[in-house]
């Protein structure tokens, strides 16, 4: 039982990683006042670029670089539309998601001719799991050993990075000048403007950070968790990340918890399939599959209450009186 739990938590970590990256990405963007339903597209774009880069150059790190570049470029398109041209954030996000869904397949067909897939990655062109020191030695120590060697050890570097990004984000948002301005610009851009700071510049920078984090999420999908790009492989993770962001009320630690919850429910669902419940019989796959969604709704209805976002979110900044 304990071991099952550990294995489930282990899977939770793997499954949550892209959600954590993406939700934190959304956090930077949305705390700066830019709604980002384009997370999905950025993840997908990065997943493709990272896999393509890794396949061509034989290095996961070079792949990661390309993934981040792709995702940041998409973030800049979003910025150009929403910040520079005061476009609707949602429409821009939908546009980016649509374009990326088509473009990744088109490009990979043109470049690799493998029907929208990149070559399978192996060796250096993938992020492989790292074993933490003493993991093997400790493996047999009861409880601790299992936790350390199974749960904590044996993930790839991006998983650790994702978890590390949470305190880093907390620190950036609450303890640095950039964070202060970023939060301010999402609450009241007029205040920032009259303080002599460029609203657009802050928002662009927030979007760059958002792009980098989505880049990590995408690269994780295609070069760490999987070994190559497949069309539509982001499979709604961007939307789930957005849900986690709102669920976590735009704050780093609660957002992490929301991501872990989603990941955990997913892991539970995977393990619950085919389980026969006495008296009811085998639970239909679909019933288990919807578990994370139903639970999310129930939690939202019961415990979380109203999620109030940054005040200026989604509203283009124009120099008018509010």
């Amino acid at each position, binding site marked *: 039982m304990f071991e099952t739990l550990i294995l489930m938590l282990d899977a939770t970590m793997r499954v949550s990683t892209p959600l954590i990256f993406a939700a934190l990405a959304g956090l930077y963007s949305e705390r700066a006042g830019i709604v980002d339903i384009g997370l999905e597209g950025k993840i997908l774009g990065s997943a493709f670029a990272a896999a393509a880069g890794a396949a061509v150059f034989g290095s996961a790190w070079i792949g990661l670089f390309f993934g981040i570049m792709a995702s940041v470029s998409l973030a800049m398109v979003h910025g150009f539309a929403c910040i520079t041209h005061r476009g609707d954030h949602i429409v821009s996000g939908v546009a980016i998601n649509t374009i990326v869904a088509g473009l990744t397949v088109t490009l990979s067909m043109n470049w690799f001719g493998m029907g929208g897939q990149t070559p399978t990655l192996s060796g250096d062109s993938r992020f492989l799991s790292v074993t933490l020191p003493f993991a093997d030695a400790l493996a047999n120590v009861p409880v601790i050993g299992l936790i350390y060697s199974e749960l904590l050890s044996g993930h790839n570097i991006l998983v650790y990075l994702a978890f590390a990004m949470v305190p880093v984000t907390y620190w950036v948002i609450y303890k640095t*000048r950039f964070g202060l301005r970023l939060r301010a610009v999402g609450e*009241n851009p007029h205040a920032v403007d009259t*303080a*002599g700071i460029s609203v657009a510049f802050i928002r662009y920078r927030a979007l760059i950070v958002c792009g980098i984090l989505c880049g990590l999420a995408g690269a994780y999908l295609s070069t760490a968790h999987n070994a190559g790009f497949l069309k539509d492989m982001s499979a709604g993770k961007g939307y789930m990340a957005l849900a986690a962001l709102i669920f976590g009320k735009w704050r780093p630690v609660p957002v992490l918890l929301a991501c872990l919850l989603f990941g955990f429910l997913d892991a539970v669902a995977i393990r619950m399939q085919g389980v026969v419940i006495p008296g009811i019989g085998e639970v239909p796959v679909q019933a288990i599959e919807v578990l994370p969604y139903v639970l999310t709704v129930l939690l939202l209805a019961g415990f979380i209450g109203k999620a109030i976002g940054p005040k200026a979110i989604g509203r283009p900044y124009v120099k008018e009186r509010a």
Partner: protein
Amino acid sequence: MTNKTTPYAIELQDISKRFGAVQANKDICLQVPAGSIHGIIGENGAGKSTLMSIIYGFYEADTGHIEVDGKRVDIRSSQDAINAGIGMVHQHFMLVENFSVLENVILGAEGGALLKGGVDAARIELQRLAKEYSLDIDVDAIVEELPVGLQQRVEILKALYRGARILILDEPTGVLTPQEADHLFRILKALKDQGVTVLLITHKLREIMASTDNVSVMRQGQMVAHRETAKTDKEELAELMVGKKVRLTVDKGEAKPSDVFLSARNLSQFDSQGVKRLKNVSLELRAGEILGIAGVSGNGQSELLNVLSGIEPMGEGEIHIAGQVITANAPKNAAQMRELKMAHVPEDRHKMGLVTGFEAYEAAVLGYHNSDTYNGKVLMDRKVMVDECNERMAAWDVRPPNPHLKTANFSGGNQQKIVIAREVEQNPDILLIGQPTRGVDIGAIENIHEQIVKLRDSGKAVLLVSVELDEIMALSDRIIVMFDGAVVGELDAKDADERTLGLMMANAYSEEKEEVPA
């Protein structure tokens, strides 16, 4: 103007600014001597805020240039203005509401990539400023939890913290008690003594007369006059502003109070955090009288209005109105209260009174949209609504008299007229009216005051909430003072003077009374 012995702190030459088709500023010239307090007055929409925003680099002028201390400066952004030593307190505060005072003050002047150093330095500097100008404030308080007066203090501290030598204040006293306003003017005086130059925009001529050295008058985007304050008077200024003579007092006969139209007993109300915001308030409102509620804003007046009008549910107590008893268990919402012939002009027209995206004729039925007058069997009768709006616009002199203009595009004064007309024309028995003339210019104030008195004289009951003591004293027949959610005093308007009321509003009256005779 020619002998430039000492350079002006700020000098504007031929500033023009156009918004689309509107010429907001036209060939404006202005000279402000260093270390003086310079008033700028003008009707709503005259272009004052625009001009100040140009000086502060918020807007860029189309033509003209600005000199600071005799040197021409190129102000393209607020940062340039700040660098030139200019600070501004905006008409609508530019604060991040969920930030602490400290965070707001250092925003843009953090003094390093990490906040720690800047925060510590600012804490010390703010203490110094607080001492020097008596600008005390809890620097760790969250801004949205502060009363407006203190929020404004934050704005001033922001400017001073950045080393402003020229301070612009756009309608700073609109939200302050007389004591707070006095305090503000003492601060301005202290600043002036330190050599700071102050540009002050206000609609209140009394303040101009009391505190400025010079005054400039704007009308329709142009500078129409400059005066030395000592050599002019209110009447002249008012005439310069409006372009015609205006009366500055309210004509009002004796009140003839009769039946009790509304009585509230032990009203209490709790906010979403469960904090008691209204504490056992009881009052009676009679036909044919104006009951004024005085108080520093944030002392429960808004909650009282909201509970009486049915917008917020009450926590405890009961309201008797039109033969009905309303309690927490038998509540009525705003629409049901209207059916009891109660009308309500809210304190904040933008937040509550209007839907700025609506055309005027639609906004003019807000709250009465279910009435048979405006509805056919299924559809709303647009023609009736527009026709009625046209009539009212003519009667209330709303400018421009266009029912199809978006509400947002009327000036504050005209928006207010639309709201008041809507409520008064329903011929209510009871009118709740909050801040009727906030941000409204002199010409419009006169009209609004007349209408309120007229309503009273026709035997209706008026409950007036205002932070303008002048207004309370000019209009009310009876005055209730609120402090910290409770009623702390009631007096006949005849016995009220500014000092007494001011002290009661600060809940310091009884203490002082005890001291004075001693």
